[in-house]
């Protein structure tokens, strides 16, 4: 099988965010990393493209993403003081959406910085 080679990939494991990593992937997993440190290497190799987890869970039971999204919207909009928290392991584009969502549901938004 041919390997996909990605050059100048960016590692988001720690705050250094090194962007000179070379990744060799076989479609399901990353088989080789160049220039990544030990932490980065295990970060890249520990995640695969396999379907290991259910798409979504509602009250612990497998559900579709559509249903989960609707349930989430109900919970957040109906709450009097919802909280949006985390955001350190997601992209800026997702963070930007999260701020917009927090505004729409009238909530509090916070990241790991406050810890």
């Amino acid at each position, binding site marked *: 099988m041919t390997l996909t080679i990605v050059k100048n990939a960016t590692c988001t494991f720690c705050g250094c965010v090194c962007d000179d990593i070379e990744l060799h992937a076989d479609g399901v997993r990353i088989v080789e990393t160049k220039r990544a440190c030990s932490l980065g290497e295990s970060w890249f190799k520990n995640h695969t493209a396999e379907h290991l987890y259910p798409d979504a869970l509602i009250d612990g039971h497998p559900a579709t993403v559509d249903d989960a999204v609707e349930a989430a919207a109900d919970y957040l909009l109906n*709450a*009097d*003081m919802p909280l949006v928290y985390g955001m350190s392991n997601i992209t800026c584009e997702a963070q930007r959406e999260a701020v917009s969502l927090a505004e729409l*549901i*009238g*909530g509090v938004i916070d990241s790991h910085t406050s810890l």
Partner: protein
Amino acid sequence: MLKLTLKQQPTVPLEAENISPDVTAGLANDAIRALHVHHGKRMCRLDEFFDVEGETSDDLEIHGDASRVKLIGRAMTRGRIKIVGNAGMHLGAYMKGGTIEVTGNASDWVGAEMTNGLIRIAGNSGGQAGAAYRGSLAGMKGGTIIIGGNAGLEVGMRMKRGIIVVKGLVRDFAGLQMKGGTLFLLGGAEIRTGAWMFRGTIVSLHPLKLLPTFAASCAYNPSFLGIYAKHLATLGISIPHEAKDGAYHRYCGDSSVPGHGEILIWKGLATSVP
């Protein structure tokens, strides 16, 4: 006297800056019932949470555990609020005059950035009493805060004028970056008291663990304490100041800033120089 009784505990914090004599005085009770409060993101009527009784006046009484009711008496200029129970955050923040009394405990930011008036908490208070909000150049600029119990972090942070008295123990950073005013610690403090202080006076009746940037200057009977003692006596607080027992160790600092603040530690309990 107007009496508000909390009839339903808010499930999320209730912001009620409208509970202030400046707003309620002169309003009919029905108008008071219709005042806005904010339950999280929802704007509600005051009477969804409070029973309103009595006559409208400058004198307000709140009954019940209002520990989740924030901003009571925000920026009030006159009159009196008595809370029979606990009070939530920002009690009397930006206060300009009048009196607030709490029979129970209060939360953080009591009298933050206040300029005048009197706040008296019988129980404990949270942190940042009389403090500056984040980024502001100055905390309280006048008035008096008396805390009967213990207090939290950063009490009197960046205060410029006024008096804070804490009868119990205060936590770290009391008088942080103080620029003036007087902080009486009758029950002692944890660590880093007076960090970054420029000016102002901290008086402690208990020995304190001081930062390395405070230098012992002398031991003496500060005569100005007599004036404070007279004033504090009217509020029911006594501090040692007479010739026989009024000697204090004086320390100055914080030399890291470098500042000209002073910390006075009562000799009566300070057996050795800290």
